[in-house]
């Protein structure tokens, strides 16, 4: 009973913080708003640690909180499932959220929406916790949509900027496309299992492994495997939330939001909800190789092609955003290879070092007075030492430098993909290997351009940059950047620590020691990837040392060296390469034309169709022809009838005589008719 109250406390504390900061945002002082919000998240973090302790001791929980709805034979409950997978996510979410809360005090210091911002990020923490702690699909969907809502509110936080309110609508709608698939998947689960609670669904899953479904009723040629359809539909939901191609388009634009939320929502937590969801559904996905192939191919495309885009970006946040897309692709590839624990492991390490990179980018942006263009930075190492060092740590972790956290998780994924037999794993292996070089290249391109080389800031620039920022930005000529205050740098340091060590410490329990236990189900006969991986594993230390002789390491090193050569030693070369590869560059700069296609064909088409149906269907056909048309017809007949009502007696007399004559004629010649 004690523990159950603690479970409840975890989501409720941030919710209360959000309510205090939100409902009274116009009356309470700033310190009260951020204290309430930070207290809420802090309590949730501490409670999560206690729960983690308890779970590590072997205590799990699966039970309802209250009955939300019942209808017919179906019962929908709100409840919690506390197991190692949940508690891992709870720790990641509450820790990163706490860091971001503290950081926000510094980053949003002068913003008029200070209190509102705290309310939103606490509300986000609540929603995300409801998502990960759920024990059923319905509540999962609630959390899923709720984080989407808060993301929408936060991307559009600066609501007077046209780009921000464009980006948030786009994000919401792209996510809704994913949710469209997701809810159909949930519907299939309910229809075939009779419940939405995880436990009974997973227990019965095996019985339905060979079940089929007709996509179109009465058409036998559309018969397909039920599990495959269900899993692919569920995964479409994950594609929206975790920004997989082609539903990735919203994530780069989401950078219109303030940087703290880019770190929290669009890097560390919300975008990984899809990865978490698929891992949670592993008992279902394991039953369908078709679905796993679909997952691995989508993941590979995202991992590789989004990485390329990172190379041509000049906005510091967008570079990090594309690297997030690419890393989400890695996690998805791991899911497809049935290496769920590796995906969750990478999710965790990525949460730390990507949150770190984003917050460091935010620190740079503060230092640069809101100039985000890396071409106008350079040499910041001298002025912002803490930001520089933590950025370096984050970048090293990201590219998979041995012994850093990212190395352990990424290397595990690459090895898992190499061993995987699922259709598409060959392409996936190529993608993740190529991705290593590309990741190293764009990460260190940004790193060198920002922290090393010639100081390019403070120069007058004629080009009007920025994304509709109204406030003046950039350093004045001669002005130097300064290190940010402690509320900004302390979270950086606190995030840098796990970015280095968490991989070394966690790989053994998480991947091979059975910490995740029954939370993840793998059909070891069909997909023996993790078992084989465990056979090759001889401790984290050996793995790190061994890495220096592997091609993965050399690919990453080559990426760093190329970036160093092209952007520090010979900075003239990139421009010449760009000039030589015009068409490729155009494709990359237009992000493979996804945005243009969506805007012109999908959004434009929908508007055109809507207008056509309205003017043509409603106004033209239904109202014009039928409704007003019938009214007109009545009117016309009335006009005709009126002609006979002339009021002249001889007209009536004539009509009468004519009528009698006509009837007589008929009566005589065709009496049957009368």
């Amino acid at each position, binding site marked *: 009973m004690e523990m159950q109250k603690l479970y409840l406390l975890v989501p409720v504390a941030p919710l209360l913080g959000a309510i205090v900061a939100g409902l009274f945002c116009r009356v309470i002082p700033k310190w009260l708003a951020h204290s309430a919000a930070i207290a809420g998240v802090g309590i949730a973090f501490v409670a999560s640690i206690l729960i983690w302790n308890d779970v590590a001791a072997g205590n799990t929980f699966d039970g309802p909180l209250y009955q939300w709805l019942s209808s017919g*034979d179906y019962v929908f409950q709100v409840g919690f499932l506390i197991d190692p997978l949940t508690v891992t996510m709870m720790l990641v979410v509450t820790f990163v959220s706490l860091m971001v809360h503290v950081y926000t005090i510094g980053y949003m210091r002068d913003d008029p929406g200070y209190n509102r911002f705290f309310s939103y990020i606490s509300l986000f923490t609540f929603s995300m916790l409801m998502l990960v702690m759920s024990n059923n699909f319905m509540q999962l969907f609630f959390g899923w949509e709720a984080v989407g809502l808060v993301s929408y509110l936060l991307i559009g936080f600066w609501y*007077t900027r046209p780009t921000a309110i464009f980006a948030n609508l786009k994000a919401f709608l792209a996510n809704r496309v994913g949710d469209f698939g997701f809810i159909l998947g949930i519907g299939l689960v309910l229809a075939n299992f009779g419940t939405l609670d995880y436990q009974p669904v997973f227990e019965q899953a095996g019985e339905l492994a060979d079940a089929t479904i007709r996509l179109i009723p009465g058409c036998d040629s559309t018969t397909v495997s039920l599990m495959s359809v269900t899993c692919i539909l569920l995964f479409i939901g994950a594609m929206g939330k975790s920004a997989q191609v082609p539903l990735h388009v919203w994530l780069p634009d989401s950078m219109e939001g303030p940087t703290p939320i880019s770190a929290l929502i669009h890097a560390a937590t919300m975008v990984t909800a899809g990865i978490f969801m698929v891992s949670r559904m592993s008992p279902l996905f394991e039953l369908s190789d078709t679905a796993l192939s679909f997952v691995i191919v989508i993941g590979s495309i995202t991992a590789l092609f989004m990485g390329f885009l990172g190379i041509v970006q000049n906005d510091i946040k967008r570079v990090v955003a594309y690297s997030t897309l690419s890393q989400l692709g890695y996690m998805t590839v791991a899911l497809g290879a049935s290496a769920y624990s590796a995906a969750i492991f990478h999710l965790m390490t990525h949460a730390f070092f990507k949150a770190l990179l984003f917050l460091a980018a935010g620190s740079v942006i503060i230092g640069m007075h809101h100039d985000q263009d890396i071409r106008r930075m350079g040499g910041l190492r001298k002025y912002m030492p803490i930001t520089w060092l933590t950025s370096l740590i984050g970048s090293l972790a990201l590219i998979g430098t041995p012994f850093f956290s990212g190395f352990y998780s990424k290397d595990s994924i690459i090895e898992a993909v190499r061993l995987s037999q699922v259709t598409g794993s060959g392409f996936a292996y190529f993608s993740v290997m190529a991705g290593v070089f590309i990741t190293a290249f764009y990460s260190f391109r940004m790193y060198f351009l920002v922290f090393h080389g010639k100081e390019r800031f403070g120069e007058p620039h004629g080009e009007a940059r920025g994304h509709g920022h109204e406030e003046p930005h950039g350093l004045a000529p001669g002005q130097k950047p300064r290190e940010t205050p402690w509320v900004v740098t302390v979270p950086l340091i606190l995030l840098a620590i796990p970015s280095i060590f968490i991989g070394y410490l966690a790989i053994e329990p998480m991947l091979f020691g059975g910490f995740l236990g029954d939370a993840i189900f793998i059909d070891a006969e069909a997909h023996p990837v993790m078992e084989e991986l465990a056979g090759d594993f001889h401790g984290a230390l050996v793995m790190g040392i061994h890495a220096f002789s592997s091609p993965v390491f050399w690919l990453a090193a080559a990426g760093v060296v190329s970036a160093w050569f092209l952007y520090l030693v010979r900075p003239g070369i990139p421009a010449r390469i760009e000039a030589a590869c015009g068409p490729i560059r155009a494709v990359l700069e237009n992000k493979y034309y996804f945005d243009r296609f969506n805007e012109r064909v999908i959004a434009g088409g929908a508007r055109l169709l809507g207008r056509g149906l309205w003017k043509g269907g409603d106004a033209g056909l239904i109202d014009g022809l039928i409704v007003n048309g019938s009214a007109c017809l009545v009117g016309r007949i009335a006009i005709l009838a009126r002609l006979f009502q002339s009021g002249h007696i001889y007209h009536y007399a004539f009509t009468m005589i004519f009528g009698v004559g006509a009837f007589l004629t008929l009566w005589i010649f065709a009496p049957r008719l009368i």
Partner: protein
Amino acid sequence: MSGLPILSLTIWVPIFAGFLVLFTGSDRNSPLARALALLGALAGLLVTLPLYTGFDTATSAMQFVELSPWIERFDVNYHLGVDGISMLFVILNSFITVIVVLAGWKVIESKVAQYDACFLIMSGLLNGIFTALDGMLFYVFFEASLIPLYLIIGIWGGPRRVYAAFKFFLFTLMGSLLFLVSLIYLYLESGSFAILDWHQMPLPMAAQQWIFLALLVAFAVKVPMWPVHTWLPDAHVEAPTGGSIVLAAIALKLGAYGFVRFSLPIAPDASHEFSGLILGLSLIAVVYIGFVALAQEDMKKLVAYSSIAHMGFVTLGFFLFSPLGMEGALVQMISHGFVAGAMFYCIGVMYDRVHSRQIADYGGVVNTMPKFAAFFMLFAMANAGLPATSGFVGEFMVIMASVRFSLLVGFVAASTLILGAAYTLWMYKRVIFGAVGNHHVAGLSDVSAREFLVLALLAFGTLGMGLYPQPFTEIMHSSVDELLRHVSVSKIQ
């Protein structure tokens, strides 16, 4: 149960109050008229409360029954009663009446007494529709309720009010006549006007088909279903805010209620036979109307079209013949009462200040009306079916039921997730977000205490039902189960 005729009170208290308000006469007494109207509306709400507290969820039988002869020559009785399907609508209607009186408080300045009286009388008549168990009594209330709404649109409406009022009246009248023919046929066959007798009466297939189609015309116009929906956007655009709220929240429910009270139980075999037609029309309503809503430039028209799409979910849910679908549809009806009512109220709040409903005349309203923008965001999200709002519950249940019925039907129905979000949030973006659009917006004042109260009441309903819908469905269970059991048994002998 106390001896008070509670259902009669729910009908006659508002009507009596309405006539009382009418007697205050000219606009010189308008403060008195308003106070009286509010008292009357609150009294009307108060007398519905015993329905909730004294309701027995275990039975599907009619409760709070009142029966006394009315026209004995034709065996017409004053016969009232509620079950788990109708009871909630009586409460919802009485609640919305309070909202409407509050909504028109400062806004309506000419013919105040007559305006409030119209709404109170209509409230009583609508309660009569939901509680009548006699066919003729139902028909009288059904037709009588048209008159106040016709007057509200025709007198307090916008520039094209006469066209809209006529269109509204003629559309619904067309359906009503066929309805009357069916009632007379059923009377001649059974020798009684009792609706419950008709439920039990065996009918050959041909008769069922004719009755079903005649009722379909009558109810489809009211719902409204595609393609007889075009009166609704016109009526909404021209109606004053209060008229739109009642129209969306209650009047649209009459057609859907007719399906469950008449079509399904009286003609179960025909209902099954024509279910494909209804499902098709419902899905067209969801998709076609969703796209049409996307193209609207007038906020009221947009919400009117979105109402049609949402009502498509109701008819869809009914004709899936599953408890989940049926209860989902009923939940959707109640939720739509809160959400559509709130959406129209929000538009009314802006219209009172700027005197325009065109989306293009706004932009950046959040800058001057932050509190209002927060409420509007909640209702917009509810309109888009976001979980934790009431808008989600019904949609979720109906989508679940349709996927169970067929993945294809579910696929089309679930498109509302995208379309609903697209038209609602795109409008929200253009109206609320952005920099201040023009000097009208720059001069806006945020909501007054009265407006805040109305919005908060509606928000309470929207959120409460979204977070904890169980009490609502609990009331429906027995009646819905009984209805579905009844519909599954053939009446052909």
